[in-house]
């Protein structure tokens, strides 16, 4: 019984990272911009967060530093892609490659550093419940924050005028422009928000989830988050569910090892990546479905003067 509660808890924790990043990418993509630089942003944010906590001891500041790092990189990306109309895929790739290189380079001094312990979290009263307590109520505030973020996004995207405007920009930037909406500024806003959230997720990884710094420690979570937005057909609630599922897949390897199941560790490490492929295959099988749900202008450049 204990084991299953712990498994659920660790899945939620692991899933939160993916969820926050994927929700940020969702905002991007709803506006029609695909940012393949998620991995690079998360890496730089992880370093920024880690370094800030080492310097100041405050995890809150670390998380904020991560968001700032993500925001700045996203701004660079947004400038190139939105104003100079560079190819979105190539620029995102460039960002990921640059982020990987830069974080590895700038982080060499932090490899041996240690972070102060983050106190055990517990929701008063609820955390003492049998099974549910350890499973659901002893998490870092950000885990609950992810839930709040989903609710916020669902409300904002589908019930407010500004959310509608964002969706319309992703649907048809030309029409939105003809109606007088500042398409480029709206897209930039979406890109910045996405970058900040990816940064938050990255900083969470290095300051709480696995509190250390190693080159490449994001290990593909940025890419998985990208797959997740497609898998969830661009709906916030589905992203959360998908993220938790992935979290579970990631955690299952430790669980299995703990059970004494003897698979070579490399095959267990492969699991999340294989799961991502499986998930992509399942969701892409029906191209009609994707076409209906995907923001129609995703990945395409927008030329206001045309």
């Amino acid at each position, binding site marked *: 019984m204990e084991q299953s509660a712990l498994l659920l808890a660790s899945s939620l924790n692991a899933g939160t990272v993916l969820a926050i990043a994927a929700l940020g990418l969702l905002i991007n993509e709803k506006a029609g911009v695909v940012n393949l630089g998620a991995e690079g942003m998360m890496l730089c944010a992880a370093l920024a967060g880690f370094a800030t906590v080492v310097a100041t001891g405050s995890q809150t500041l670390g998380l904020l530093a991560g968001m700032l790092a993500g925001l700045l990189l996203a701004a660079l990306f947004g400038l190139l892609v939105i104003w100079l109309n560079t190819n979105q*895929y190539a620029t995102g790739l460039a960002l990921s490659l640059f982020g990987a290189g*830069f974080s590895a*380079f700038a982080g060499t001094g932090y490899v041996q550093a240690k972070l102060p312990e983050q106190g055990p979290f517990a929701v008063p009263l609820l955390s003492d419940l049998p099974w549910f307590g350890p499973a659901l109520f002893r998490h870092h505030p950000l885990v609950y924050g992810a839930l709040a973020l989903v609710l916020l996004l669902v409300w904002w995207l589908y019930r407010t005028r500004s959310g509608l405007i964002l969706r319309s920009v992703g649907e048809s930037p030309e029409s939105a422009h003809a109606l007088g909406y500042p398409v480029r500024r709206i897209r930039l806003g979406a890109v910045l928000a996405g970058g900040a959230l990816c940064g938050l997720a990255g900083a969470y990884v290095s300051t709480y989830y696995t509190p250390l710094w190693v080159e490449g420690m994001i290990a593909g979570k940025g890419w998985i988050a990208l797959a997740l937005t497609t898998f969830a057909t661009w709906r916030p609630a589905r992203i959360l569910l998908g993220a938790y599922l992935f979290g579970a897949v990631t955690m299952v390897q430790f669980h299995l090892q703990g059970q004494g199941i003897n698979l*070579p560790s490399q095959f267990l490490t492969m699991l999340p*990546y294989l799961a991502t492929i499986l998930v992509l295959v399942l969701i892409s099988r029906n191209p009609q479905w994707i076409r209906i749900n995907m923001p129609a202008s995703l990945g395409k450049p927008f030329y206001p003067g045309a």
Partner: protein
Amino acid sequence: MLRVELRAQPSKVWSYASPLLALALTVLIGMALFMLLGKDPLRGLQVFFWEPIRTPYAIGELLLKATPLLLIALGLAVCFRSNVWNIGAEGQFVLGALAAGGVALLAGPDSGRWMVLAVLLAGVAGGMVWAGLTAWLRDRFHANEILVSLMLVYVAIQLLGFLVYGPWKDPLGYNFPQTKTFEAAARIPRLFDGSRLNIGLPIALALAAGIWLYLFRTLSGFAQQVGGLAPAAARFAGFSSRRALWIALLVSGGLAGLAGALEVAGPLGQLTPYVPAGYGFAAIIVAFVGRLHPVGIVLSALLMSMFYIGGELAQSRLGFPKSITGVFQGLLLFSLLACDTLVAYRIKWGK
């Protein structure tokens, strides 16, 4: 305020000048980085651009490192021109290395020289199989090739780890994760004494010429490019997009696998967990900087090789972490993308 204005016709001048400008920008930012970190920028410039070509041995090393970059980037050029975004060349490189290594391990002290051919072919096959997996998933299930090929990179690296820590580990290797060193018969022949440069280079150059002929002088190459330039026109012409997908991925997978085979049976001489050196990703940048054109790619492969070697020298001579190479690579691609806007747009000062 800066304004961007669309040109009536893309500027030919800038399409050649843009990579040069991007390089200049990267160098400038690099020098600023050096200064920020308290190192002499001119010394940095020297380490990156002069040391690697100072002696014949250094040039040999430069060409040696450029070979896998050139090979992989050639394949990526075919892919990207076909609008197939193969980001997982690194994984195909690893699988090529694995397949080649597996065959090389079969060699004994008395094997004939034909083993080399077998090793290289195995590398090509390994890369093709791995890329073919991505092609199949996209063909059959419409799965996005960017994410699939990338996930397969992680899988490939784990596979390498499994083999090298497990069944293929050298029993006489003091428990280090590495295979035994390959027999001489399976090693790639060198070009001359005194240099590690091997036949990989002429092979790569020949393939560059071949790819050029394919892309610009054959109907199939034309069809590939139309698929990338105007998919609706390709459909109108009756050029099969399935065929284009498979050709693109098999070609780039095969080339990446060949590069892996050359690395592993060449300078490395054995399989270790350090086989994936990031060439598959660096080659993406090589391909773009080379304008997806075989001639440009030869030049940009040399440039990227310089970055790699410069990074290693910077580590040993200047005390920099080797990962500075990665910073420069990323900067170069960013600058290139930014400078490329000058091809399509004019920048003006104005209201």
